[in-house]
Protein backbone atom coordinates (compact mmCIF):
# COMPACT_ATOMS: atom_id res chain seq x y z
CA UNK A 1 0.00 0.00 0.00
CA UNK A 2 2.60 2.65 0.91
CA UNK A 3 4.21 2.03 -2.44
CA UNK A 4 1.05 2.99 -4.30
CA UNK A 5 0.66 6.22 -2.34
CA UNK A 6 4.24 7.12 -3.13
CA UNK A 7 3.52 6.64 -6.82
CA UNK A 8 0.64 9.18 -6.74
CA UNK A 9 1.21 12.21 -8.89
CA UNK A 10 0.88 14.66 -6.01
CA UNK A 11 3.75 13.15 -4.10
CA UNK A 12 6.03 12.91 -7.13
CA UNK A 13 8.82 15.49 -7.09
CA UNK A 14 8.52 17.90 -10.01
CA UNK A 15 11.48 18.37 -12.30
CA UNK A 16 13.10 21.78 -12.84
CA UNK A 17 12.32 21.56 -16.53
CA UNK A 18 8.66 20.71 -15.93
CA UNK A 19 8.29 23.51 -13.40
CA UNK A 20 9.69 26.14 -15.74
CA UNK A 21 7.57 24.90 -18.62
CA UNK A 22 4.42 25.02 -16.53
CA UNK A 23 5.16 28.47 -15.20
CA UNK A 24 5.84 29.85 -18.64
CA UNK A 25 2.66 28.37 -20.09
CA UNK A 26 0.60 29.60 -17.17
CA UNK A 27 1.90 33.12 -17.49
CA UNK A 28 1.41 33.05 -21.22
CA UNK A 29 -2.22 32.04 -20.84
CA UNK A 30 -3.00 34.99 -18.56
CA UNK A 31 -1.13 37.31 -20.89
CA UNK A 32 -3.18 36.46 -23.98
CA UNK A 33 -6.19 38.77 -23.36
CA UNK A 34 -3.90 41.70 -22.56
CA UNK A 35 -2.95 41.91 -26.18
CA UNK A 36 -6.44 42.05 -27.68
CA UNK A 37 -8.89 43.10 -25.01
CA UNK A 38 -9.85 46.61 -23.97
CA UNK A 39 -10.67 47.81 -20.50
CA UNK A 40 -14.24 46.52 -20.65
CA UNK A 41 -12.96 42.94 -20.90
CA UNK A 42 -11.30 43.30 -17.52
CA UNK A 43 -14.29 45.15 -16.09
CA UNK A 44 -16.43 42.20 -17.09
CA UNK A 45 -13.83 39.77 -15.81
CA UNK A 46 -13.70 41.35 -12.37
CA UNK A 47 -17.38 42.25 -12.14
CA UNK A 48 -18.65 41.71 -8.62
CA UNK A 49 -21.66 39.65 -7.67
CA UNK A 50 -24.93 41.49 -8.31
CA UNK A 51 -25.90 41.53 -4.67
CA UNK A 52 -22.51 42.79 -3.53
CA UNK A 53 -22.34 45.78 -5.83
CA UNK A 54 -23.21 49.21 -4.55
CA UNK A 55 -25.17 51.77 -6.53
CA UNK A 56 -22.14 53.25 -8.29
CA UNK A 57 -20.70 49.91 -9.26
CA UNK A 58 -24.09 48.81 -10.56
CA UNK A 59 -24.37 51.96 -12.65
CA UNK A 60 -20.95 51.32 -14.16
CA UNK A 61 -21.87 47.74 -15.01
CA UNK A 62 -25.16 48.79 -16.59
CA UNK A 63 -23.38 51.44 -18.62
CA UNK A 64 -20.88 48.91 -19.91
CA UNK A 65 -23.59 46.35 -20.69
CA UNK A 66 -25.72 48.90 -22.53
CA UNK A 67 -22.70 49.84 -24.60
CA UNK A 68 -21.94 46.21 -25.36
CA UNK A 69 -25.53 45.49 -26.36
CA UNK A 70 -25.73 48.62 -28.47
CA UNK A 71 -22.67 47.49 -30.42
CA UNK A 72 -23.80 43.91 -30.71
CA UNK A 73 -27.50 44.30 -31.47
CA UNK A 74 -27.55 47.80 -32.95
CA UNK A 75 -30.39 48.63 -30.56
CA UNK A 76 -30.46 50.93 -27.58
CA UNK A 77 -31.20 48.79 -24.55
CA UNK A 78 -32.54 50.17 -21.31
CA UNK A 79 -31.39 47.81 -18.55
CA UNK A 80 -33.08 48.36 -15.23
CA UNK A 81 -31.90 47.10 -11.86
CA UNK A 82 -35.14 47.70 -9.98
CA UNK A 83 -35.05 46.16 -6.53
CA UNK A 84 -37.87 44.08 -5.09
CA UNK A 85 -40.77 46.10 -3.67
CA UNK A 86 -41.04 45.73 0.08
CA UNK A 87 -43.97 43.64 1.23
CA UNK A 88 -44.37 41.62 -1.95
CA UNK A 89 -44.21 37.91 -2.50
CA UNK A 90 -45.31 37.07 -6.00
CA UNK A 91 -47.63 34.18 -6.62
CA UNK A 92 -49.11 32.81 -9.79
CA UNK A 93 -52.35 31.00 -10.44
CA UNK A 94 -53.26 28.95 -13.46
CA UNK A 95 -56.82 27.83 -14.06
CA UNK A 96 -56.68 24.36 -15.59
CA UNK A 97 -60.41 24.35 -16.17
CA UNK A 98 -60.03 27.30 -18.55
CA UNK A 99 -56.71 26.76 -20.34
CA UNK A 100 -57.32 25.78 -23.97
CA UNK A 101 -53.69 25.13 -24.90
CA UNK A 102 -53.46 27.83 -27.58
CA UNK A 103 -49.77 28.56 -26.81
CA UNK A 104 -50.22 32.32 -26.99
CA UNK A 105 -48.50 32.60 -23.62
CA UNK A 106 -45.46 30.76 -24.97
CA UNK A 107 -44.88 33.25 -27.74
CA UNK A 108 -45.85 36.33 -25.76
CA UNK A 109 -43.15 35.27 -23.34
CA UNK A 110 -40.70 34.80 -26.21
CA UNK A 111 -41.47 38.31 -27.45
CA UNK A 112 -41.27 39.97 -24.05
CA UNK A 113 -38.21 38.18 -22.74
CA UNK A 114 -35.91 38.11 -25.79
CA UNK A 115 -35.69 34.33 -25.98
CA UNK A 116 -33.46 32.96 -28.69
CA UNK A 117 -35.25 32.15 -31.96
CA UNK A 118 -32.29 30.20 -33.35
CA UNK A 119 -31.66 27.90 -31.56
CA UNK A 120 -35.23 27.94 -30.30
CA UNK A 121 -35.85 28.53 -26.59
CA UNK A 122 -39.27 28.62 -24.94
CA UNK A 123 -39.70 29.22 -21.24
CA UNK A 124 -43.25 27.89 -21.16
CA UNK A 125 -44.14 24.35 -22.17
CA UNK A 126 -47.80 23.52 -22.66
CA UNK A 127 -48.50 19.87 -21.92
CA UNK A 128 -51.53 18.06 -23.23
CA UNK A 129 -53.13 15.26 -21.23
CA UNK A 130 -55.91 12.85 -22.03
CA UNK A 131 -58.90 13.39 -19.82
CA UNK A 132 -59.78 10.65 -17.43
CA UNK A 133 -56.37 9.04 -17.29
CA UNK A 134 -53.59 9.12 -14.76
CA UNK A 135 -52.45 12.53 -15.83
CA UNK A 136 -49.92 13.59 -13.25
CA UNK A 137 -47.53 11.21 -14.98
CA UNK A 138 -45.77 13.97 -16.87
CA UNK A 139 -43.84 11.49 -18.99
CA UNK A 140 -47.07 10.53 -20.73
CA UNK A 141 -47.94 14.09 -21.71
CA UNK A 142 -47.72 15.48 -25.22
CA UNK A 143 -46.06 18.80 -25.93
CA UNK A 144 -45.90 18.74 -29.76
CA UNK A 145 -49.67 18.67 -30.34
CA UNK A 146 -50.74 20.87 -33.25
CA UNK A 147 -54.40 20.45 -34.20
CA UNK A 148 -56.48 22.80 -36.36
CA UNK A 149 -58.26 24.19 -33.34
CA UNK A 150 -58.01 23.94 -29.59
CA UNK A 151 -59.42 22.87 -27.18
CA UNK A 152 -59.67 19.33 -28.48
CA UNK A 153 -62.36 16.96 -27.35
CA UNK A 154 -61.14 14.67 -24.59
CA UNK A 155 -57.95 16.54 -23.71
CA UNK A 156 -56.87 19.16 -21.25
CA UNK A 157 -53.80 21.33 -21.13
CA UNK A 158 -51.32 22.30 -18.48
CA UNK A 159 -48.68 24.96 -19.11
CA UNK A 160 -45.52 24.47 -17.10
CA UNK A 161 -42.88 27.10 -16.46
CA UNK A 162 -40.60 28.02 -13.59
CA UNK A 163 -42.59 27.44 -10.41
CA UNK A 164 -40.60 30.02 -8.41
CA UNK A 165 -40.12 27.66 -5.48
CA UNK A 166 -39.80 29.00 -1.96
CA UNK A 167 -37.25 26.23 -1.41
CA UNK A 168 -35.57 26.15 -4.82
CA UNK A 169 -33.28 23.18 -5.42
CA UNK A 170 -31.63 25.01 -8.33
CA UNK A 171 -30.33 27.71 -6.00
CA UNK A 172 -28.82 25.23 -3.62
CA UNK A 173 -26.74 23.46 -6.27
CA UNK A 174 -25.36 26.53 -8.05
CA UNK A 175 -21.59 26.52 -7.49
CA UNK A 176 -21.14 30.23 -8.29
CA UNK A 177 -24.29 31.58 -6.62
CA UNK A 178 -25.31 32.89 -10.00
CA UNK A 179 -28.94 32.10 -9.20
CA UNK A 180 -30.79 33.06 -6.05
CA UNK A 181 -34.20 33.89 -4.66
CA UNK A 182 -35.02 37.58 -4.48
CA UNK A 183 -36.96 39.06 -1.54
CA UNK A 184 -40.14 39.16 -3.64
CA UNK A 185 -39.84 35.44 -4.25
CA UNK A 186 -38.56 35.45 -7.82
CA UNK A 187 -35.68 33.08 -8.50
CA UNK A 188 -33.33 35.04 -10.74
CA UNK A 189 -30.12 34.38 -12.64
CA UNK A 190 -27.14 36.65 -13.11
CA UNK A 191 -26.13 35.76 -16.65
CA UNK A 192 -22.69 37.27 -16.10
CA UNK A 193 -21.99 34.93 -13.23
CA UNK A 194 -23.48 31.78 -14.71
CA UNK A 195 -20.72 29.42 -15.81
CA UNK A 196 -23.04 27.07 -17.65
CA UNK A 197 -22.45 23.96 -15.54
CA UNK A 198 -26.17 23.11 -15.75
CA UNK A 199 -26.34 21.68 -12.25
CA UNK A 200 -29.50 23.73 -11.79
CA UNK A 201 -31.09 22.14 -14.82
CA UNK A 202 -30.35 18.72 -13.40
CA UNK A 203 -31.78 19.66 -10.03
CA UNK A 204 -34.99 21.33 -11.25
CA UNK A 205 -37.87 18.87 -10.89
CA UNK A 206 -40.02 20.89 -13.32
CA UNK A 207 -37.64 21.05 -16.27
CA UNK A 208 -38.09 24.80 -16.26
CA UNK A 209 -34.55 25.88 -17.01
CA UNK A 210 -33.18 26.32 -20.51
CA UNK A 211 -29.61 26.37 -21.74
CA UNK A 212 -28.13 28.56 -24.46
CA UNK A 213 -26.22 25.94 -26.44
CA UNK A 214 -25.31 28.56 -29.02
CA UNK A 215 -25.30 32.31 -29.16
CA UNK A 216 -28.95 33.37 -28.98
CA UNK A 217 -30.25 35.03 -32.14
CA UNK A 218 -33.29 37.24 -32.55
CA UNK A 219 -34.48 39.37 -35.45
CA UNK A 220 -33.50 42.93 -34.78
CA UNK A 221 -37.04 44.29 -35.05
CA UNK A 222 -38.26 41.76 -32.49
CA UNK A 223 -35.82 42.70 -29.74
CA UNK A 224 -37.40 44.08 -26.60
CA UNK A 225 -35.07 46.85 -25.42
CA UNK A 226 -36.96 47.47 -22.16
CA UNK A 227 -35.09 45.01 -19.98
CA UNK A 228 -33.90 44.15 -16.50
CA UNK A 229 -30.44 42.98 -15.47
CA UNK A 230 -31.90 39.88 -13.83
CA UNK A 231 -34.57 39.40 -16.43
CA UNK A 232 -34.95 39.71 -20.16
CA UNK A 233 -31.68 41.31 -21.26
CA UNK A 234 -30.11 39.30 -24.07
CA UNK A 235 -28.30 36.24 -22.82
CA UNK A 236 -24.88 34.89 -23.69
CA UNK A 237 -23.85 31.58 -25.14
CA UNK A 238 -23.43 28.99 -22.41
CA UNK A 239 -25.72 30.43 -19.75
CA UNK A 240 -28.94 29.10 -18.26
CA UNK A 241 -32.21 31.03 -18.37
CA UNK A 242 -35.79 30.55 -17.22
CA UNK A 243 -39.06 32.29 -16.41
CA UNK A 244 -38.48 35.18 -14.01
CA UNK A 245 -42.13 36.32 -13.70
CA UNK A 246 -41.29 39.14 -16.14
CA UNK A 247 -39.32 40.91 -13.40
CA UNK A 248 -38.96 43.99 -15.61
CA UNK A 249 -42.76 44.33 -15.72
CA UNK A 250 -43.90 43.03 -12.35
CA UNK A 251 -41.53 45.21 -10.35
CA UNK A 252 -43.04 48.16 -12.15
CA UNK A 253 -46.50 47.01 -11.11
CA UNK A 254 -47.54 45.47 -14.41
CA UNK A 255 -48.83 41.97 -15.07
CA UNK A 256 -46.48 39.45 -16.69
CA UNK A 257 -46.74 39.13 -20.47
CA UNK A 258 -48.32 35.66 -20.33
CA UNK A 259 -51.11 36.94 -18.07
CA UNK A 260 -51.92 39.80 -20.41
CA UNK A 261 -52.01 37.67 -23.55
CA UNK A 262 -54.09 34.75 -22.26
CA UNK A 263 -57.31 34.84 -24.30
CA UNK A 264 -59.31 32.87 -21.72
CA UNK A 265 -58.00 34.63 -18.63
CA UNK A 266 -56.69 31.40 -17.14
CA UNK A 267 -53.58 33.04 -15.76
CA UNK A 268 -53.68 34.97 -12.49
CA UNK A 269 -50.92 36.91 -10.84
CA UNK A 270 -50.61 38.85 -7.63
CA UNK A 271 -49.06 39.48 -4.27
CA UNK A 272 -49.42 36.58 -1.85
CA UNK A 273 -49.04 38.96 1.08
CA UNK A 274 -52.01 41.08 -0.01
CA UNK A 275 -55.20 39.47 1.30
CA UNK A 276 -57.24 41.26 -1.37
CA UNK A 277 -55.21 40.00 -4.32
CA UNK A 278 -56.64 37.70 -6.97
CA UNK A 279 -54.16 34.98 -6.20
CA UNK A 280 -55.20 34.91 -2.55
CA UNK A 281 -58.84 34.65 -3.60
CA UNK A 282 -57.93 31.63 -5.72
CA UNK A 283 -56.01 29.95 -2.94
CA UNK A 284 -58.70 30.55 -0.38
CA UNK A 285 -61.73 29.70 -2.51
CA UNK A 286 -60.67 27.29 -5.22
CA UNK A 287 -59.33 23.77 -5.41
CA UNK A 288 -55.62 24.44 -5.59
CA UNK A 289 -52.68 22.16 -6.10
CA UNK A 290 -49.01 22.66 -6.72
CA UNK A 291 -46.92 20.59 -9.03
CA UNK A 292 -44.86 17.86 -7.35
CA UNK A 293 -45.79 19.10 -3.92
CA UNK A 294 -44.23 16.02 -2.38
CA UNK A 295 -40.74 17.31 -3.19
CA UNK A 296 -41.07 20.11 -0.63
CA UNK A 297 -40.00 22.76 -3.08
CA UNK A 298 -42.97 24.95 -2.07
CA UNK A 299 -43.74 26.38 -5.49
CA UNK A 300 -45.47 29.74 -5.67
CA UNK A 301 -47.24 28.59 -8.81
CA UNK A 302 -50.75 27.38 -8.00
CA UNK A 303 -52.80 25.34 -10.42
CA UNK A 304 -56.49 25.51 -9.69
CA UNK A 305 -59.92 24.54 -10.98
CA UNK A 306 -62.29 27.47 -11.04
CA UNK A 307 -65.37 25.41 -11.79
Amino acid sequence: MPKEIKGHSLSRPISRRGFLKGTALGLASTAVPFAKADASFWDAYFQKHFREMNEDELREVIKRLEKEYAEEYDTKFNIKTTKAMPGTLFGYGLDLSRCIGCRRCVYACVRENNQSRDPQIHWITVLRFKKGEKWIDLEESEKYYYPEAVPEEGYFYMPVQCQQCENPPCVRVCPTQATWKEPDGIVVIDYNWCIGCRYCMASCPYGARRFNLAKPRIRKEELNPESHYLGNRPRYKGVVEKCIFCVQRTRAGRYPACVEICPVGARKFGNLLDPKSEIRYCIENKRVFRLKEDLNTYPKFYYFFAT
Partner: protein
Amino acid sequence: MRYFNINLKGDGGRGTIKDVDCEARKRNVWLEVLAEQARSLGVFAIVVAVLVSFGLPAWASEDGNGAAAAVRDDDIPKFFVPPPPFSEGIFPCSQCHADMVVNKKRRKLYYHTNIQKMFNHAEKQRWCLDCHNPDDRDKLRLASGRLITFEESYYLCGQCHGTIFRDWKAGVHGKRTGMWNGKKEYRLCVHCHNPHSPRFKPLKPLPPPIKPSDIKYRRLSPDEIPPNPLNKIFPLKTDSRSKDAKGN
Protein backbone atom coordinates in the same frame (compact mmCIF):
# COMPACT_ATOMS: atom_id res chain seq x y z
CA MET B 1 -56.45 26.94 3.01
CA ARG B 2 -54.86 23.58 3.57
CA TYR B 3 -52.63 24.05 0.59
CA PHE B 4 -51.29 27.41 1.60
CA ASN B 5 -48.10 26.40 3.31
CA ILE B 6 -46.05 29.55 3.13
CA ASN B 7 -45.95 31.28 6.45
CA LEU B 8 -47.19 34.74 5.67
CA LYS B 9 -47.70 36.34 9.02
CA GLY B 10 -45.78 34.15 11.40
CA ASP B 11 -48.88 32.24 12.39
CA GLY B 12 -48.74 29.45 9.85
CA GLY B 13 -51.01 31.27 7.44
CA ARG B 14 -54.03 30.91 9.73
CA GLY B 15 -54.30 34.64 10.12
CA THR B 16 -55.33 34.93 6.52
CA ILE B 17 -58.87 33.85 7.25
CA LYS B 18 -59.36 36.91 9.38
CA ASP B 19 -58.71 39.19 6.49
CA VAL B 20 -61.72 37.96 4.59
CA ASP B 21 -64.75 40.13 5.23
CA CYS B 22 -62.71 42.14 7.65
CA GLU B 23 -64.81 45.21 6.95
CA ALA B 24 -68.06 43.40 7.60
CA ARG B 25 -66.72 41.96 10.81
CA LYS B 26 -65.65 45.35 12.09
CA ARG B 27 -69.13 46.68 11.48
CA ASN B 28 -70.69 43.73 13.28
CA VAL B 29 -68.41 44.09 16.28
CA TRP B 30 -69.26 47.74 16.51
CA LEU B 31 -72.95 47.00 16.43
CA GLU B 32 -72.54 44.30 19.04
CA VAL B 33 -70.73 46.63 21.41
CA LEU B 34 -73.45 49.17 20.97
CA ALA B 35 -76.12 46.58 21.63
CA GLU B 36 -74.34 45.42 24.77
CA GLN B 37 -74.19 48.92 26.17
CA ALA B 38 -77.76 49.58 25.32
CA ARG B 39 -78.85 46.34 26.96
CA SER B 40 -76.93 47.18 30.10
CA LEU B 41 -78.70 50.46 30.23
CA GLY B 42 -81.96 48.81 29.46
CA VAL B 43 -82.63 51.05 26.52
CA PHE B 44 -83.45 48.56 23.82
CA ALA B 45 -85.05 51.23 21.75
CA ILE B 46 -81.61 52.57 20.85
CA VAL B 47 -80.68 49.25 19.32
CA VAL B 48 -83.85 49.22 17.29
CA ALA B 49 -83.24 52.77 16.19
CA VAL B 50 -79.68 52.00 15.14
CA LEU B 51 -80.75 48.95 13.20
CA VAL B 52 -83.52 50.85 11.47
CA SER B 53 -81.33 53.78 10.61
CA PHE B 54 -78.57 51.52 9.22
CA GLY B 55 -80.47 48.66 7.70
CA LEU B 56 -83.66 50.02 6.27
CA PRO B 57 -82.49 52.84 4.01
CA ALA B 58 -79.92 50.57 2.37
CA TRP B 59 -82.55 47.95 1.82
CA ALA B 60 -85.16 50.40 0.67
CA SER B 61 -82.86 52.14 -1.77
CA GLU B 62 -82.79 48.97 -3.89
CA ASP B 63 -85.80 48.29 -5.99
CA GLY B 64 -87.40 46.62 -3.04
CA ASN B 65 -87.28 43.55 -5.19
CA GLY B 66 -85.62 40.20 -4.31
CA ALA B 67 -83.47 39.82 -7.40
CA ALA B 68 -82.29 43.41 -7.49
CA ALA B 69 -81.57 43.51 -3.77
CA ALA B 70 -79.26 40.52 -4.22
CA VAL B 71 -77.12 42.58 -6.59
CA ARG B 72 -74.86 44.76 -4.50
CA ASP B 73 -73.45 47.62 -6.50
CA ASP B 74 -70.64 48.49 -4.12
CA ASP B 75 -68.46 45.49 -4.93
CA ILE B 76 -68.58 45.98 -8.69
CA PRO B 77 -65.16 47.17 -9.83
CA LYS B 78 -65.31 50.54 -11.47
CA PHE B 79 -62.81 50.25 -14.28
CA PHE B 80 -63.78 48.81 -17.61
CA VAL B 81 -61.91 49.92 -20.60
CA PRO B 82 -63.44 48.69 -23.76
CA PRO B 83 -67.05 49.55 -24.57
CA PRO B 84 -69.37 46.63 -25.34
CA PRO B 85 -68.44 44.93 -28.62
CA PHE B 86 -71.43 45.92 -30.73
CA SER B 87 -71.67 44.93 -34.37
CA GLU B 88 -70.99 47.83 -36.68
CA GLY B 89 -73.82 50.37 -36.77
CA ILE B 90 -76.25 48.37 -34.67
CA PHE B 91 -76.30 50.61 -31.61
CA PRO B 92 -78.29 52.56 -30.49
CA CYS B 93 -81.14 50.15 -31.15
CA SER B 94 -83.62 52.99 -30.92
CA GLN B 95 -82.49 54.32 -34.27
CA CYS B 96 -84.80 51.69 -35.81
CA HIS B 97 -86.90 50.52 -32.89
CA ALA B 98 -88.10 53.93 -31.71
CA ASP B 99 -90.81 54.06 -34.36
CA MET B 100 -91.74 50.40 -34.33
CA VAL B 101 -94.74 48.88 -32.61
CA VAL B 102 -93.75 46.47 -29.88
CA ASN B 103 -94.91 42.93 -30.44
CA LYS B 104 -94.17 40.90 -27.34
CA LYS B 105 -95.20 37.59 -28.86
CA ARG B 106 -92.45 35.04 -29.37
CA ARG B 107 -92.03 34.55 -33.10
CA LYS B 108 -89.57 34.13 -35.94
CA LEU B 109 -87.94 37.42 -36.86
CA TYR B 110 -87.25 38.60 -40.39
CA TYR B 111 -84.47 40.88 -39.22
CA HIS B 112 -81.50 39.97 -36.96
CA THR B 113 -81.30 36.67 -38.79
CA ASN B 114 -77.64 36.05 -37.87
CA ILE B 115 -78.43 36.30 -34.22
CA GLN B 116 -81.43 34.07 -34.63
CA LYS B 117 -79.32 31.50 -36.45
CA MET B 118 -76.53 31.41 -33.87
CA PHE B 119 -78.78 31.75 -30.85
CA ASN B 120 -78.09 28.83 -28.52
CA HIS B 121 -78.22 30.38 -25.08
CA ALA B 122 -81.05 28.54 -23.31
CA GLU B 123 -83.02 29.07 -26.50
CA LYS B 124 -85.84 26.76 -25.47
CA GLN B 125 -86.66 28.87 -22.45
CA ARG B 126 -85.94 32.34 -23.68
CA TRP B 127 -86.09 34.74 -26.53
CA CYS B 128 -85.08 38.35 -27.28
CA LEU B 129 -87.37 40.21 -24.92
CA ASP B 130 -86.33 38.21 -21.87
CA CYS B 131 -83.15 40.28 -21.80
CA HIS B 132 -83.77 43.20 -24.15
CA ASN B 133 -86.16 45.78 -22.82
CA PRO B 134 -89.21 46.02 -25.11
CA ASP B 135 -90.09 49.65 -24.40
CA ASP B 136 -86.65 51.27 -24.47
CA ARG B 137 -84.44 49.14 -26.71
CA ASP B 138 -81.25 50.89 -25.69
CA LYS B 139 -81.54 49.24 -22.30
CA LEU B 140 -81.45 45.70 -21.00
CA ARG B 141 -83.93 44.43 -18.49
CA LEU B 142 -83.29 42.30 -15.44
CA ALA B 143 -85.81 39.73 -14.23
CA SER B 144 -86.74 42.21 -11.54
CA GLY B 145 -87.79 44.77 -14.08
CA ARG B 146 -84.83 46.99 -13.36
CA LEU B 147 -83.36 48.55 -16.49
CA ILE B 148 -79.63 48.55 -17.05
CA THR B 149 -77.38 49.90 -19.78
CA PHE B 150 -75.34 47.71 -22.09
CA GLU B 151 -72.21 48.74 -20.16
CA GLU B 152 -73.64 46.99 -17.08
CA SER B 153 -74.63 43.80 -18.85
CA TYR B 154 -72.80 41.78 -16.18
CA TYR B 155 -75.84 42.15 -13.93
CA LEU B 156 -77.91 40.42 -16.55
CA CYS B 157 -75.45 37.54 -16.89
CA GLY B 158 -75.06 37.36 -13.12
CA GLN B 159 -78.75 36.61 -12.66
CA CYS B 160 -78.18 33.03 -13.78
CA HIS B 161 -74.40 32.65 -13.57
CA GLY B 162 -74.04 33.79 -9.99
CA THR B 163 -70.92 31.85 -9.06
CA ILE B 164 -69.15 33.00 -12.20
CA PHE B 165 -70.25 36.57 -11.49
CA ARG B 166 -68.74 36.30 -8.02
CA ASP B 167 -65.46 35.01 -9.42
CA TRP B 168 -65.43 37.71 -12.08
CA LYS B 169 -65.81 40.45 -9.47
CA ALA B 170 -62.87 38.99 -7.58
CA GLY B 171 -60.87 39.01 -10.81
CA VAL B 172 -60.61 35.24 -11.09
CA HIS B 173 -63.01 34.56 -13.92
CA GLY B 174 -61.95 36.30 -17.08
CA LYS B 175 -59.00 38.30 -18.12
CA ARG B 176 -57.47 41.24 -16.32
CA THR B 177 -54.74 43.44 -17.64
CA GLY B 178 -52.98 46.50 -16.29
CA MET B 179 -51.33 46.69 -12.90
CA TRP B 180 -51.37 43.86 -10.39
CA ASN B 181 -51.13 46.42 -7.58
CA GLY B 182 -53.09 49.26 -9.10
CA LYS B 183 -55.39 50.15 -11.92
CA LYS B 184 -56.74 47.06 -13.62
CA GLU B 185 -58.58 46.72 -16.83
CA TYR B 186 -61.58 44.42 -16.91
CA ARG B 187 -63.58 42.98 -19.72
CA LEU B 188 -67.32 42.59 -19.83
CA CYS B 189 -68.72 39.05 -20.09
CA VAL B 190 -69.64 39.79 -23.69
CA HIS B 191 -66.07 40.57 -24.70
CA CYS B 192 -65.28 36.86 -24.57
CA HIS B 193 -68.73 35.27 -24.74
CA ASN B 194 -71.15 36.19 -27.47
CA PRO B 195 -74.33 36.71 -25.44
CA HIS B 196 -76.40 34.91 -28.07
CA SER B 197 -73.97 32.00 -28.41
CA PRO B 198 -71.85 32.09 -25.31
CA ARG B 199 -69.55 29.09 -25.60
CA PHE B 200 -65.92 30.21 -26.04
CA LYS B 201 -64.99 29.69 -29.69
CA PRO B 202 -62.06 27.35 -30.46
CA LEU B 203 -58.79 28.97 -31.54
CA LYS B 204 -55.99 27.93 -33.80
CA PRO B 205 -53.00 27.16 -31.60
CA LEU B 206 -49.59 28.63 -32.29
CA PRO B 207 -46.94 26.16 -33.51
CA PRO B 208 -45.36 23.65 -31.13
CA PRO B 209 -41.69 23.81 -30.14
CA ILE B 210 -39.18 22.28 -32.52
CA LYS B 211 -38.68 18.58 -31.98
CA PRO B 212 -35.09 17.62 -31.21
CA SER B 213 -35.09 15.51 -34.38
CA ASP B 214 -35.91 18.61 -36.50
CA ILE B 215 -33.13 20.83 -35.19
CA LYS B 216 -30.78 21.91 -37.97
CA TYR B 217 -27.13 21.69 -37.05
CA ARG B 218 -26.08 24.84 -38.83
CA ARG B 219 -26.40 28.51 -38.12
CA LEU B 220 -29.26 30.15 -39.95
CA SER B 221 -28.54 33.29 -41.91
CA PRO B 222 -30.04 36.48 -40.44
CA ASP B 223 -32.96 36.34 -42.89
CA GLU B 224 -33.71 32.76 -41.98
CA ILE B 225 -34.18 33.43 -38.25
CA PRO B 226 -37.81 32.52 -37.74
CA PRO B 227 -40.07 35.42 -36.79
CA ASN B 228 -42.29 35.11 -33.76
CA PRO B 229 -45.56 33.45 -34.86
CA LEU B 230 -47.38 35.77 -32.47
CA ASN B 231 -46.73 38.66 -34.87
CA LYS B 232 -49.45 37.36 -37.17
CA ILE B 233 -52.11 37.70 -34.47
CA PHE B 234 -50.74 40.64 -32.47
CA PRO B 235 -48.46 42.72 -34.72
CA LEU B 236 -45.37 44.24 -33.19
CA LYS B 237 -45.73 47.84 -32.12
CA THR B 238 -43.10 48.93 -34.58
CA ASP B 239 -43.38 52.69 -34.06
CA SER B 240 -42.35 52.68 -30.40
CA ARG B 241 -39.62 50.13 -31.02
CA SER B 242 -38.06 52.00 -33.93
CA LYS B 243 -38.14 55.20 -31.91
CA ASP B 244 -36.15 53.46 -29.21
CA ALA B 245 -33.71 52.19 -31.76
CA LYS B 246 -33.28 55.61 -33.31
CA GLY B 247 -32.48 57.20 -30.00
CA ASN B 248 -29.21 55.28 -30.25
